[in-house]
């Protein structure tokens, strides 16, 4: 029903938003979301504390106790006793120091894992979307199989088989959860491929891959950022779970999962020893979720309410 002449005034598109200000708009919307700002503030605080703690540990500065120094005479202390702000654990180690060291581990795993998600997810998604046909079919079947997998079970096996180092943990978490990203990017590539300008580029002899990449980045960046933001708390959660189940980070390295597992042994006598790391991990994951929610709402203009 293409009407060639402007028979209708509806064709005056006066609501077309400016494309240029998209990111600035998103930032405006993000800033106006108090929950998201709180999340961002918390994450920055936790990150700074973790970095600061590492510097203190590295230079043996006396602001914090050594996270590994045992002091059996002063074990299981409560909050604010004998210079231990958050108390000490069953070996007399300072809980605050261990908590701050563990923050570094959690954040490192959370962030590094995202690079693996991105590498595999983008690789598979682009390949499937770009080549289409049989390649796409095969890769998407793989994704289907991956979805049918009990993920934590697989993760436990991998980590226990290859030994629980920081490297195996974040690589195996990354290897398992790339599927969402692969689907997302494949979808974007397919929708760009359908557009006429890609055909035009092919006809004009220029590489359609270049065109797709040029259009993919601005279109997919928002959803990818959101997906990666939610990937961080998931990776932190998985590391903690693995350590809690005794398959993750090996003691005495104070990961939060390890601290929870060790504190859990004495939950009835000293509940605060398990409570402190449990709350730390809950706050960290909540903060990242707040940011993720905020980003999703601000990057997707349709979400405006």
């Amino acid at each position: 029903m293409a009407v060639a002449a402007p028979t209708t005034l509806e064709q005056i598109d006066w609501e077309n938003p400016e494309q240029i200000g998209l990111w600035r708009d998103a930032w405006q919307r993000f800033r106006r979301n108090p929950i998201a700002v709180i999340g961002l503030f918390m994450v920055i605080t936790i990150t700074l504390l973790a970095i600061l703690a590492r510097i203190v540990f590295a230079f043996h500065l006396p602001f914090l106790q050594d996270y590994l120094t045992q002091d059996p005479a002063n074990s299981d202390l409560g909050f604010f006793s004998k210079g231990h702000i958050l108390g000490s654990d069953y070996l007399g180690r300072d809980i605050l120091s261990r908590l701050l060291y563990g923050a570094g581990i959690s954040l490192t795993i959370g962030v590094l894992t995202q690079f693996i998600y991105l590498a595999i997810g983008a690789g598979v998604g682009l390949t499937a979307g770009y080549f289409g046909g049989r390649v796409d079919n095969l890769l998407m079947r793989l994704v289907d199989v991956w979805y049918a997998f009990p993920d934590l079970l697989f993760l436990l096996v991998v980590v226990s088989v290859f030994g629980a180092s920081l490297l195996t943990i974040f690589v195996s978490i990354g290897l398992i959860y790339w599927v969402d990203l692969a689907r997302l990017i494949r979808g974007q590539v397919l929708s760009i491929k359908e557009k006429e300008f890609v055909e035009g580029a092919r006809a004009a002899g220029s590489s359609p891959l270049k065109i797709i990449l040029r259009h993919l980045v601005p279109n997919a960046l928002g959803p990818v950022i959101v997906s990666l933001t939610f990937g961080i708390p998931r990776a932190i959660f998985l590391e903690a779970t693995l350590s809690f189940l005794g398959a993750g980070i090996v003691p005495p390295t104070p990961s939060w999962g390890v601290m929870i597992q060790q504190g859990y042994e004495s939950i009835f006598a000293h509940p605060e020893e398990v409570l402190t790391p449990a709350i730390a991990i809950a706050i960290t994951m909540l903060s990242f979720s707040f940011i993720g929610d905020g980003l999703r709402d601000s990057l997707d203009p349709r979400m405006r309410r």
Partner: protein
Amino acid sequence: MASPLLRVEDLKTQFFTSRGVVHAVDGISFEVNRGETVAIVGESGCGKTMTAFSILRLVPDPGRIVSGKILFKDRDVAKMDDDEVREFRGNDVAMIFQDPMTSLNPVTKVGVQIEEAMTAHERFSVKEAAARVVPLLKQVRIPAAEQRLKDYPHQFSGGMRQRAMIAMGLSNEPELLIADEPTTALDVTVQAQIIQLLKQLNREVGAAIILITHNMALVASLCQRVIVMYAGRIVEQGPVEQIFDSPQHPYTWSLLRSVPRVDHARAERLVSIKGLPPDLVRLPPGCKFHPRCRFKVERCEREEPPLGDVAANQLARCWVLMRNVPEEQREETKVVEVSHEAAAELKQADTA
């Protein structure tokens, strides 16, 4: 003289957004008589749809009817309680929406959706309602109605869905049918059929119709009277022939000039209206149309003109009035080529 079927008095509907108050409908008054066909025309965002939603008290959040009366047979809809409004909707006044693709529930059978429109009200018993579905579908010319009522909307074509919507609207024999852009989403040939159907139903059933549209061709083919809206207010109203022959408001004039007339030569001079409709949060002072008006005088920028009589039964809100604009001044317009197809399509809609 008997009171009109619907009398809207100084209706104001506003949206309370973070940007400020949106004056969607800004003090409009009009009447619709029994059996009459009235068109409300204007660009999108001029408040015509919100006027319709206000009449049915369907204004979505964060919007609200702020003041004014909506008298349907002398009862004020704005003051009804929830139960009364529910009984009023679909029973006294029914509405047909713009997009038949999205206006029907995709997971409920078409027959059920028509039937429930009747069982919601007391006019028909459950048994009668069930028995009426097939005749209604036949009335709107859906073939094989007995089988079709068991279909889901996705099994219907766009035109058939709009017919089903009309059947739903007519099911309670309402005295007023509001059709909000009923043909915009449809193919041109189907548009003509739908308009013809509405016309016929108006004649046979006697229901008054408010047609909301931006398509002047439809107005000419269906309606007796036109109300032109701009920026939430009425800028001109009057009988169709009179408005089409001698529009007095520059906006109406531009609207009409932007429609290619089929009875003219192949290439037609068309006027496109420069600029954008005003921001309904920050309205310009004076006449709301003056920033886009080619005939404005200094007074237009200061003072808003009243909606005054300009001819018998014709009202316009303008200090200048088109009859005072000399012919040669009107014609300095850009020429747009009108394709032959478009003209033919319009002719089809026009003669329907």
